[in-house]
C-alpha cells in the first residue's frame, strides 16, 4: 500500500516537473490564436475592416472585440474559415465582397509626387521624386490605399482577370457543357 502511494506520488512529481519544464522550454511566443487568425486573413492591408491592417484586425478578433465578417477582400471564404477556427457560426459578410484587384498608374499622367509610395502598405510602388511611378503587379494587394492620395487621379484599380494560369473548374452543379457543344455541328458542318 505504502509503496503504491509512494510510486504514484513519485510519478506525479516526475510528470509535474516534466510539464513544468516543457511549459518553459517550449513556450509559444505571442498569441497563438491571433497568429492563426492572421494567417487566414488575406493580408491586403486595406483597412476596410476599420483597423489599420490585417494584424490589428486579427488582434481585435482574438480579443473578441469585433465580428469576423468585416474583411471585404477575404469574402465569404474567409468568414467561413474564421468561423471554423473559432468555433463560431459563419455570418453574412458585413461589407461587399471585393474580387482581386490590382492598381495601375497611368504613367503619362503621373507627376512623380511620391504620395502613393508613402500610402502603399507593402512597398509595391517604385519610382523616385519627380519621376514616373509604377506598380509592381505581383506585390500589389489591391488595397486601394494609393488611390485617394494621388493629386492627379492617375491610379486606377483594375480587377484581376481570369487567365489560363488562374482558371478554375466550376463547381459541377451547373449542367454539363453539351449546350455549347451543340453549336459545333452548325459552325462549319
Amino acid at each position, binding site marked *: 500500500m505504502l509503496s503504491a502511494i509512494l510510486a504514484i506520488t513519485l510519478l506525479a512529481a516526475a510528470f509535474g516537473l516534466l510539464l513544468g519544464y516543457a511549459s518553459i522550454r517550449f513556450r509559444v511566443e505571442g498569441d497563438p490564436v491571433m497568429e492563426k487568425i492572421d494567417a487566414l486573413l488575406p493580408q491586403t*492591408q486595406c483597412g476596410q475592416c476599420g483597423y489599420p491592417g490585417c494584424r490589428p484586425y486579427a488582434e481585435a478578433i482574438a480579443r473578441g472585440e469585433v465580428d469576423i465578417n468585416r474583411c471585404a477582400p477575404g469574402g465569404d471564404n474567409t468568414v467561413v474559415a474564421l468561423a471554423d477556427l473559432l468555433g463560431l457560426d459563419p455570418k453574412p459578410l458585413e461589407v461587399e465582397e471585393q474580387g482581386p484587384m490590382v492598381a495601375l498608374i497611368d504613367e503619362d499622367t503621373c507627376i512623380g509626387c511620391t504620395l502613393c509610395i508613402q500610402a502603399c502598405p507593402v*512597398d509595391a510602388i517604385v519610382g523616385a521624386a519627380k519621376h514616373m511611378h509604377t506598380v509592381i503587379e505581383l506585390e500589389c494587394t489591391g488595397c486601394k490605399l494609393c488611390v485617394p492620395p494621388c493629386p492627379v487621379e492617375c491610379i486606377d484599380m483594375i480587377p484581376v482577370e481570369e487567365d489560363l494560369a488562374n*482558371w478554375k473548374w466550376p463547381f459541377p452543379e451547373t449542367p454539363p457543357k453539351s449546350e455549347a457543344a451543340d453549336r459545333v455541328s452548325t459552325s462549319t458542318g
Partner: protein
Amino acid sequence: MTNHTPQLWRFHGGLHLAPNKAQSTHAPIASMPLPTRLIIPLQQHIGTSAEVGVEIGAHVLKGQVIGRAVGYVSAPIHAPSSGTVVEIAERPIPHPSGMSATCIVIDTDGRDEWTPVQACPDYQSLDPSALRNRIREAGIVGLGGAGFPAFIKLNPASAHGVDTLILNGAECEPYIACDDMLMRERADAIVRGAQIMRHALLAKRCLIGIEDNKPEAFAALAQAIRQCSDTGIEIVPVPTIYPAGGEKQLIKVLTGKEVPSGGLPLEIGVICHNVATAVAVDAALNQGRPLLSRVVTVAGAGVRTPCNLDVLVGTPVSAVIAACGGYTDDAKRLIMGGPMMGFTLDNDAVPIVKTSNCILVAAAAEAPDPPPALPCIRCGACAEVCPALLLPQQLYWHSRAKEFDKVQDYRLFDCIECGCCAYVCPSHIPLVQYYRYAKTEIWAQERDKRKADLARQRHEFRLQRQQRDKAERDARMQQKKAALNSGGNQDARQKAAIQAALQRVKEKQLGAANAPEARPDRSKDEEHPTGPVDPSQSR
C-alpha cells in the same frame, strides 16, 4: 527482343471498354493538304509559356523558332511551315476553359520551305546535357497528352542512370489509335528514338508496353528491334484494360513497382515516355528537325471518314475535319482527347497543338448527356474500379462539401482523372468534375496563401522600417534638445570664442612683426569653437 514472356503485375480496378479503334485504323496514316492559315499557341506544354520570337509581317521558314522558351520548364515553338506572320493575338485555344491565349498566326506560302537544319546522327558522342539541350531546342514535349517538356524527363539525376525506360504504347482509351498507327508504320523511328533516350538516361533496359489488342504494332516493333539487334529493348504485351496507359498503372504492370503517393517515377528508377515522343526525338537528332506535326486520330460517328492524320501543329480543327470528309448529320459534340479523359471543345476554330492526340466527333449515342445525378448510395462500385486505389465516394463527399483539407487526406492529388469511377457510378454523379473542381480550388488557395504571405512579410518589413526611421528621428530630436538644454554652457563657449577672436585682433594690431609667435595660438583658437558646436548647428 526476347521470346520468354516476362512476368506482369496487375493494377487495381480498371474497366473493359469497347475499343472503337478499328474505325480509324483501316487506312494508313494520311497526310493532309497544307492549311492556308496556322494558329500556333505559345503555350502547348506544361510550364512557362514561350515568348514571342518573331514580328508581325516577318517571313518565316519551316522549322524556324517563333517562340522562345522562358526558364527551365518551358519549350520553344517553331513555325510548322513557311509563310508570313500575319497576326500575334489572343485566339481561342484547346483548353477546357474555352479561353483564349496568345497565338502566332501564319499565312502559309505553299512552298513549305525548310530553314537550314543540322542533323546529329552521332548522338553517342554528345554528352548527355548537350543531347538534352538538342531535344529541348527541338521543342519536344510529352506527346501522350500531358505535354511535359521531354528533356526534363531525360535527366537521370544521378550518375548511375535509371533502371528502366518505359515507352508507353498502351494507348488504352477508346477511339484513339494514333500511337497504334505510329508503331505499325514508324517502328524503326520508335526504336531509334528509344536508343537515344536510353543513352541520355543511361537506362539499363527499355521496355515498350503495348496493349495486347494491337498485334500489328507488336509485330512491326518486334521486326524493327530484330533488324537493329538491340538486346536492351524489349516489347511487352500488357492486358487490355483501361487505364493500362496511365503512367503509374503501366509502371506497375511492367515492373511491379508502385510510384509513391505524390512522388515521381524517377524515385523508383523508372522513366516513362510516350512512343510518339520517341519518334520526335529520333527526328530531332537524326534529321535535326524540330517537332512540327503529330499524328491525330479523327474518329466518331460525327465525321464522315474517320482516320489517322499527320497534322501540322496550328492546323485549325475545322480543317482537320474537312480533310476527313466533314461532319455527318449526327455530329453532336466535339471532344479533344478520348471519351474518358478528353474535354469538350466549344468551337472548331481552335488549333491542333502538340498534345492533341484525338478529335472525337461524337454522335448523341456516343456521348449521351448524363442523366441527372442522384444521391450517392454508398455502393462502393467506384472504389472497386479506381486504379489509384482511392475512395472516390469520400473524395466526392468532401469535394462537394468544399472540405479541401479532408479531400487531400483522401489523396485527391493521386487521382489521375481516368473517369472509371464516374463511368460505373449508378447514381450518375459527375465524380471527376468534382475532383477537378477541388484540385483547381486548392491550387487557387495555395496561390492566395503565397500572395498573402508575401504581403504580410512586406507589410511587416515596412512597419519595421517606419519604426526604425521614427526611432532615428526621435534620437536626433533628443540630441537637439540636449544641445539646447546645455545652452548656458554653449553661451560661455561662444563668449570665449569671441573673446579669443578679439584677442587675436588685438595681438595683430599690437605686433604685426611678431607673426611667427602668433600663429600657433591662432590655430589652437580656431579648433576649439568649431569642434563641439558643429553637430547641432549644422542641422
